[in-house]
Structure formats: structure tokens, C-alpha cells
């Protein structure tokens, strides 16, 4: 709560400015500065944090502008009363848009950017024809007497909004919500599989971002006092917010504000004669330079040098616990019945049926293309199945969104490690406990993460980015991340491939230790000696179907299995 205190003090200090008797020019300049801070920071809450770059921020700002302008000019509302509606209308628009767009998996990246740009133009056209009528709207109203001058009063209002906006960005940044958004940015599919409710989070971030922009728009309508569609919905706004955030750093709550201050100062430094043109050219040069030289923005670059956080390591050396279960029996924890999955005509799984017994280590083996990885992807919810049923502890999994499957207690590793690239190793492992079967708060999640890092030997690399790990460490990171959510059923997808014999022995030891604590493990692997050593039972898949199941020695001597592997074809 120290931060809250800091914000209030800062706000009070800035709030004193209108009472200093400065010329109106300064109050106007400061207003515009704050206006830019609000727009850039609100944009960043969705776009910077989650990676969904919107080029349509102008649409929501414009909605706020026009709601206030129309209500004041055409219906004689009091200006302050229109503000909640301005925010609400913008948020509603964002909700509507997001509800449709965020459902469609393919709409990411540049498509989302273009879609939001198109929305701005459509909205502008509708506003022009239906609300504005062409010549614009004159907004004449009484401004509340908050300060000696009108511009001072507007400055104070915008200051309030700026404080709310930056505070929101700060709060989200340090919350579980924010961690989820950053995970979505790095790898949305994996985030979903780890338990992050991606659709809900994106929608929430979008609505918040739009509401704040709408609020700023409401005030701006009164500031400019004459509102036109061309000025309000200009493409310049859309791009300026992107530029400001990129300059300051999109991955930080304060980045957009810094960028906004720099750019606004630059633009208003050039006000005489031909200078505005130069100013715009300079803005373009800066944009290019920033993207090329400082892809992480000013703040990103500065913070890189400050990354060594002093970590509070919990002193407990106890081994972490999973679900305690009795020794392996034949009670099924997962029942697979007739599960099928095809990709563009290729049948990856064809009516596969088998059972996984509670507490066992089950080996899932088979030649290349036999459907092993596909099976894991279907169980974890990465892909929807085409048919069949998957019953986990009595509940049907097929049709459930991936984050709910994670909540049920299923975890998996990826054959090619997919860590969240911009989160530290610690944050990577702390994420599943916040969203998995046992949802913890941040502090407990971090403590949990430390325990698993120690278990896998990665404690020394806790604050490092995954890119700095070697393959063996990355595979163990996958393992730690999967374990951190305390799953009941764990899928290991070729966790040993690429490891040296020594590293492999260590991994085998770890897998045994995990089972000893009660988790059921399904182990997809090609390294046959590991499979023989570790597994209680083996199931062999070929062409998407199981052809044999039983004890390892027996199964691998089965003539059908030998045939599948070595091929019975003699040319």
C-alpha cells in the first residue's frame, strides 16, 4: 500500500499547479501531456501487456468524445454527468467487439491490428452521418469551478483520470491478471493449457482499456469545444499511442507514460512556422529508430540493467508434495474411449481406447506419426477431439476449454520446450500454481515455485530468462512448470530427447521421485532403455490406435510390435 500512498502524494503535488497562476499556455500543454499519458497507458493495458496490438484506440476515444458532445449539445446534460456514460459506451463497444473477435483463434497479430483500424473508419462514418451530420458539434457548457481558470479545471479533471489510469496499469501489472496477460503475450495457447482463462482476461483488459479511453474522450470534447469526426477519429491518434508506448516500453506500466511525455514535448516543441512538419518527420524517424534499436523501449533497456532482484528465498528445504496416493493399482484415473483426431485428412488418432491406472507410470510408445503427441494435445485441450470420450476421475474432458482441464488437475510438458520467453524462470514456474488446480496468491505461488526449482536443480537460475538456459535446463523448466500446479495426472512428452546420458539419468531419477509422491504419469518417449527402466506398463500406438498393452518386457517381444517398429516389408 506504499505505492498507493505514493500515487496520492504525487497527485496532490501535481494538483497544486493550477493554483500557481501560470499562463494558460502551460496549463494547456500540461493538459495535453496528461491526455497523451491516459491514451497511451490505457492502450497498453490490452495491447502492450497481452500483445494484441490495436490500431483502433481512436474508435473508443471517439465514442467517449461523441457521447459527451451529443449529450451536452443536443440534450443539455451537465458535462460531468456524461462522463460515466462516455466510459460505459466505450466499454460496451469494446465488449461487443472483443466478444466476437477474441473467440476466433486465427485473429491475432496484424489481423487484429487491421480489424481494429477498420472499426475506427466504420465508426467514424456512422458518427459522421448519424450524430454529427457533417459540420461538427459545438460543445458549450459550464466547466465546474475546480480551479481559478477553465483550463486549470480541465487540467485537474484530466489529472484525476491520468492518476486512475496509471494506477490501473500499475495494479494490473502486479496482479495475477497481469501475469496472465503477459503469459498470453508470450504464448497464448500454452497459457490457456496452464490454466489462464485467456478469453475472459483479454475481454477484461480490452473493456478496461476502452473505458479509460472513453473517459478521456468525454473530457476532451469539452476541452476542444468544437468536435469534428475528422479530428477525433484521425489515424494519427491510433498510431501515436502505439509509438508512445513502444518508445517508453510496452511491457511496463510506466513505459507508455514516459513515451507520451517525450513525444508530446517534442511535438509541442515545434510550433512555429514550418516546424510542425519537421516535428512530424522527426516523430517518424524516432519511431523507426525505436523499433530498430530499442525494441523493448526506453524503460525496457533501463530495467535490463536492474534485473538482479534480491530474492527472498524461503528457507524450507522440504521436498514438495503432490497428491498422496497408495501404490499403483488398476483403478482407472483416465478412461479413453474411441478418441479420434484428424488433420486435413491425415488420421492422427483413430478410435483409440485404453485406460490409465491411478499411480502408475504408463509408457506410451510407437513409431513416428503414431499419434502419441496428438493424444497429449487432445487430452490437455490444445486441440479439440473429433470424436470419442475422455473421462478423467469421472468427468468428461472433451468439449472443455483447456484452462478448465488444467484446473481439473492435468498437466503436461512440451516436446520442444515452450517457456514464456519474457518471464523469468521463477515467474514461469509460479504461473501454474496461480491458475492451476490449487489457485494460490502470488506470494504462495512464488514459494511453491521455489520448491520446484530446487527439486529440479534450477534454483540458481531463477531470475534468468529461459533463452539463457541450455536444452537440458529448459526441459527441466518444463518439468518444474508442469509439477508446480500439483497435478494428479502428468503427461511427459519426450522429456529425455536431446539429453546426454548423464542428464538422462538425472531426469529418470526425477521422474521416479515424482511418482513416489503420488502423481500418475504418462510417459511418451523414444529412448527405449528409459522406457524399460521406468514404466510399470506400456501401450504401443501405431497409426493412431493402440495395438498392445501390458508389461514392458512382454509387450516389446510381441511379434506385432516388433513388426510395427522394424517393418515386416521385404522388397
Amino acid at each position, binding site marked *: 500500500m506504499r505505492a498507493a500512498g505514493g500515487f496520492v502524494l504525487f497527485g496532490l503535488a501535481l494538483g497544486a499547479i493550477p493554483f500557481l497562476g501560470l499562463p494558460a499556455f502551460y496549463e494547456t500543454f500540461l493538459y495535453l501531456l496528461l491526455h497523451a499519458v491516459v491514451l497511451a497507458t490505457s492502450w497498453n493495458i490490452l495491447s502492450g501487456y497481452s500483445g494484441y496490438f490495436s490500431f483502433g484506440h481512436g474508435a473508443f476515444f471517439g465514442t467517449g468524445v461523441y457521447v459527451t458532445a451529443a449529450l451536452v449539445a443536443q440534450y443539455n446534460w451537465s458535462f460531468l454527468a456524461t462522463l460515466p456514460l462516455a466510459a460505459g459506451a466505450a466499454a460496451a463497444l469494446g465488449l461487443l467487439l472483443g466478444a466476437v473477435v477474441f473467440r476466433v483463434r486465427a485473429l491475432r497479430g496484424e489481423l487484429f491490428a487491421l480489424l481494429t483500424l477498420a472499426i475506427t473508419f466504420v465508426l467514424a462514418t456512422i458518427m459522421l452521418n448519424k450524430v454529427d451530420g457533417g459540420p461538427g458539434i459545438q460543445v458549450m457548457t459550464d466547466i465546474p469551478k475546480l480551479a481559478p481558470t477553465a483550463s486549470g479545471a480541465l487540467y485537474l479533471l484530466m489529472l484525476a483520470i491520468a492518476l486512475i489510469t496509471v494506477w490501473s496499469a500499475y495494479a494490473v501489472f502486479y496482479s495475477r491478471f497481469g501475469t496472465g496477460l503477459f503469459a498470453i503475450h508470450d504464448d497464448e495457447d500454452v497459457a490457456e493449457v496452464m490454466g489462464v482463462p485467456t478469453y475472459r482476461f483479454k475481454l477484461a483488459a480490452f473493456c478496461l482499456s476502452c473505458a479509460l479511453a472513453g473517459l478521456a474522450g468525454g473530457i476532451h470534447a469539452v476541452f476542444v469545444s468544437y468536435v469534428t469526426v475528422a479530428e477525433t477519429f484521425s489515424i494519427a491518434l491510433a498510431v501515436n499511442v502505439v509509438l508512445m508506448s513502444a518508445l517508453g516500453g510496452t511491457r511496463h506500466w510506466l513505459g507508455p507514460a514516459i513515451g507520451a511525455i517525450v513525444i508530446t514535448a517534442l511535438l509541442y516543441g515545434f510550433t512555429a512556422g514550418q516546424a510542425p512538419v519537421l516535428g512530424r*518527420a522527426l516523430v517518424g524517424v524516432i519511431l523507426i529508430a525505436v523499433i530498430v534499436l530499442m525494441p523493448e523501449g526506453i524503460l525496457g533497456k533501463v530495467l535490463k540493467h536492474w534485473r538482479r532482484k534480491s530474492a527472498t528465498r524461503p528457507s524450507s528445504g522440504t521436498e514438495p508434495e503432490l497428491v498422496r496416493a497408495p501404490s499403483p493399482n488398476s483403478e482407472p484415473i483416465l478412461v479413453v474411449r474411441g478418441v479420434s483426431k484428424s488433420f486435413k485428412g491425415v488420421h492422427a488418432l483413430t478410435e483409440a481406447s485404453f485406460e490409465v491406472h491411478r499411480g502408475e507410470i504408463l509408457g506410451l510408445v510407437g513409431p513416428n506419426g503414431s499419434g502419441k503427441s496428438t493424444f497429449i494435445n487432445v487430452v490437455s485441450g490444445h486441440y479439440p477431439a473429433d470424436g470419442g470420450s475422455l473421462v478423467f476421475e469421472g468427468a468428461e474432458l472433451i468439449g472443455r476449454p483447456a484452462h478448465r482441464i488444467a484446473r481439473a488437475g492435468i498437466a503436461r510438458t512440451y516436446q520442444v520446450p515452450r517457456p514464456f520467453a519474457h518471464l523469468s524462470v521463477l515467474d514461469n514456474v509460479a504461473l501454474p500454481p496461480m491458475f492451476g488446480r490449487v489457485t494460490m496468491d502470488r506470494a504462495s505461488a512464488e514459494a511453491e515455485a521455489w520448491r520446484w526449482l530446487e527439486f529440479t536443480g534450477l534454483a540458481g537460475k531463477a531470475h534468468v530468462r529461459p533463452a539463457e538456459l541450455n536444452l537440458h535446463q529448459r526441459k527441466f523448466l518444463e518439468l518444474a512448470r508442469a509439477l508446480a500446479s500439483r497435478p494428479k495426472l502428468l503427461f511427459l512428452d519426450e522429456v529425455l530427447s536431446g539429453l546426454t546420458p548423464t542428464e538422462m539419468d538425472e531426469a529418470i531419477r526425477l521422474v521416479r521421485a515424482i511418482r513416489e509422491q503420488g502423481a500418475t504419469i504418462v510417459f511418451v518417449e523414444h529412448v527405449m532403455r528409459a522406457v524399460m527402466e521406468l514404466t510399470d506398463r506400456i501401450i504401443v500406438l501405431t497409426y493412431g490406435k493402440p495395438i498392445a498393452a501390458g508389461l514392458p518386457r512382454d509387450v516389446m517381444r510381441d511379434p506385432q510390435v516388433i513388426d510395427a517398429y522394424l517393418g515386416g516389408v521385404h522388397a
Partner: protein
Amino acid sequence: MPSATLIGQSVLSGVFIGALYGLLGLGLSLSWGMLRQVNLAHFALAFLGGYLTFQLAARLDPFVTLAITVPLFFLAGVGLHWFLSRFAPDMLNTLLVTFGLTTIIEAAIQWIWTADFQRMESAYGAMRWKVGAFYIPFPEAATLLLAMTLCGAMWALLRFTDFGRAARAMTEDPAMAAAFGVNEKRLGYVISGLAAAFAAVAGMCLALTHTLAPVQIYAWMGVVFAAVMIGGLGSAIGPLAAGILIGVSEALTMALTAPTWAPLVSFSLLIAIILFRPARF
């Protein structure tokens, strides 16, 4: 209800403007579809071409100015591709960098030619034919002809030559194309150069048929993007067909309702395509 002649003339003008959309879209389609670079600066480049034509038209016939602008712009395209592949490999970053470039070019245009509207005076401006009840102005007809010729030629190039096959293979699987001898880098330069050269021609047509102003650059972005996305990324003829479709719809909308509703057509189409066929991109 407007007369048949008015509707017919509207359709005709829709076709003409659509041809310009297609011509502007040709370069964008190639660089986006084949090189995976969304080049926002394409529009600024076209306008620069238009302004250069305007400048040179004082001494030269506008069509002759192409002999200067086309090679110049081809080289600019090569340079741009070099810069983008070196410094902005990410799609989103390319979008931002090219937007920065657009701002710079726009500022340069305003510096040299001012923000005022400029209209190129040429003998062609006054020429027009009457076919039945309809007027066919020469500049617009020339644009249509140029658009059809260039789009058609590019289509043929892509369809029937080794270069075209190599480009299409490279778009799909650059590593495998390289395994058969396709030099991705060199092809990239050629395609980027061509896209910029087409921008030069589109610029000339712009100068011929429209009044130029720096702020106009942004007005064309949305509708041409729509034409390219509807016509198909990497297609040479698609954007032209889509452009004409959009142009005619806009013209009819204008004739039957009010001009200010026209932008709704292209953007709504664009939104619909993005929402219902995202896999095309």
C-alpha cells in the same frame, strides 16, 4: 430514384476508381503475400510518385515521366526490402517501421509542395469521349488500361514463367525452394522493387485523375487494404477485381444515398472478410 443514365455513369466511374484501387493494391498484394511484409509506406510512395509526376509534368508528358520514376522507385523498393529484412523481421515491427516511413515521406511532401491541394494540368485532363449516353474521360480510361495491363502482365509472369513459379514456391516453403536453387534474397529484392515500381505508376495515375494533398495518403489506405484482402494476398488480378467490386458498390451507394456513407462499404467488407475468412491470411 436516379435515372438509368446516372446509375450507368456511376457504375462506370466506380469501375474507373476501382481500377486505381487495384493498381495501388498490386504492389501491396505482392509484398504482403509473397514477402510477408505489410508495407504501409506503399501509399506514401505512390503519392510521392504522384507529386514527382506533377513536378515533372511542367516539362514532360506525364506518361514519359514514368521512364524516370519507375526505375528510381524500383531501386527504392530494393533498398526498402534490404532495410526491412535486416532490421524489422517481425510482421508487426514492419507495420510500425513502414508507418514511421509514411510519416517521414508525408512530411517531406508537405515541406516541398505544401499542404495545399495541387492539381496537375495536362492536355489529357480535358480529353474525353462520349459513348452513347456516357462520358469516358481519358485519364480514367488510361488508368483502367494501365491497371489491366500491369495486373495482367504480373499474373502471366507469376503463372507462366520460372520466376513466377519460384516466387510462388518461395512464398509457401522458402527452405524447400532453396533446396531446388531458388535464391530467396534475390527474389525478394526483385519483388519489392516491382511493388515500388507499380506504386510509381499508380502515383502517376493518381496525379492524372485526382487532386493531390498530403493528408489524402491516409484516405486510400483502408479501401486498398480491403481490396487486397478480399482479392487475395499475393494475387495480381484479385485486388483489381475486388477493387472494381468495391468501387462500383461505393459509387452506387453514393448515387442512391449520400456520399458520406461510401466508406462504410469497403470497411464493412473488410471487417466481414477478416471475421469470416481469417485463414486466408
